[in-house]
């Protein structure tokens, strides 16, 4: 926990915030933007631009950003967890649940 990393919350009701710099497990996350200051540590290696959970989010519960549901949790999410394709699914676009977690590249398209 040698570094403090900034997370930016857009709307007071959000349960996720966006990392402005890369974070490693155990690093303290410094809150900026809307909503209440929270004490958080990054749970996993999480890249800048990606989201972390501000509080516990049960499976099937809404992931909220901009004060609006951006997807549903596909697994229980703990505070500080990286929230992305592996634990959050779109309510519209089924394909995005089949993309590579890190590159976003499609995994189901056949090249033959």
């Amino acid at each position, binding site marked *: 926990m040698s570094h403090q990393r900034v997370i*930016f919350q*857009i709307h007071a009701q959000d349960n996720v915030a*966006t*990392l*402005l710099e890369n974070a490693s497990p155990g690093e303290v996350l410094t809150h*900026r933007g809307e909503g209440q200051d929270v004490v958080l540590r990054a749970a996993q290696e999480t*890249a*800048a*631009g*990606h*989201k972390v959970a501000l509080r516990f989010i049960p499976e099937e519960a809404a*992931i909220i*950003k*901009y004060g*609006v*549901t*951006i*997807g549903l949790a596909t697994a229980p999410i703990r505070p500080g967890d990286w*929230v*992305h*394709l592996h634990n*959050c*699914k*779109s*309510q*519209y*676009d089924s*394909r*995005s649940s089949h*993309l*590579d977690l*890190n*590159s*976003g*590249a*499609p995994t189901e398209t056949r090249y033959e």
Partner: protein
Amino acid sequence: MSDLEWTGYLRADGRKGVRNLVLVIYTVQCAEFVAHQIAQGEPDTHVIGFPGCYDNEYAIRLMLALGRHPNVGAVLAVGLGCEYTQPGRIAEVVRTSGRPARSFFIQQQGGTTSSIRHGKELVHELRHEIEAVPRTLITWSDLVIGCECGGSDGTSGLAGNPVVGRFFDGLIDQGGTAVFEEVVEMIGLRSELEARAANEEVRTSLRHTYQKAEQYCRAVRQYSVSPGNFAGGLTTIEEKSLGAFAKSGTRPIQGVIKVAETPSHPGLWLMDSVPDEHFMQFGYTNPNDTEGIVDLISAGAQIVLFVTGRGSVIGSPIAPLVKITGNSKTFRQMNEDIDFNAGEVLDGTLTLEQAATSLATLVRNVASGTLTKPEMLGHREYFIMYKHQNTPGLLEGCRA
């Protein structure tokens, strides 16, 4: 944003431009090389064109809208000679707007070299004719400004688009006009969209526009989100939608226009570029950023803002493209390409309001003639393709 005035170009049809361009339009891919060679080295001469031999009313409407754009003073239409789209008809319609226009077929000029020579002579004639176009005072209320985003990352929705949204609020409060599009990037936001309608009639048209876009996305199983977006931290189309929607600011939406239509009065307008039902089912909505930018220009936007978090190197013909990033690292790494750093909002060195004021100053300078970075680099990408949109009441196609 104060009530400043500066100087622009007054067209015979009353529109006011911030550039004084000759536009070369080719009517089939076979004429593309010659068209570009004609414009090569000619000052303030841009090129657009349509690659298909078989004509398309959507593409023709789009080219006619671009040919009569406020920033365009004159048009040269160049065809090969055997395609369906008729350069003579394009020039004829452009002339009815009071702009000088010429046209010719390459096959009647004796080939590449003589066509380029002839085309350059015509461009010189047109340039001479539009040098006399009257200058006029213009202000915010004379401007139509479009906004597109592309190459998005997590910062576009956090800073880039919100700064544009705040600038748009100010522009509209000064009597100006703002146009945004990317309806397919509003999937998941039906109630947010409808809540912004200026009246009940607009609410109905927003609902129909939204439903069409959602059906379209389901049908083609393609939402406007790409591997690079996911890698950048966006997880769902809904999340991207909200970030994209932030560029629209907070003012009421006055209505929905289709490609090549112009807003009937000032305020905030949504452009619908999604294809309508057609037996051929051709046309892809937002196939790339350039297509969306060209669509916004067709609405008469004299300037287009382009928000890119990851960094894009494109520009646009006809209307200067102002490139904005919400990512300070992208701004440093691609500084020769990016005009404005909204990332300072995330760095904590500027408030949203301060950034929007600074963007307004930049836009006013560009409207007064300052070149944007894409203009300085010579970027003039365009993309016009087959599509079908129902737009009753608009000028019919130009098929001979």
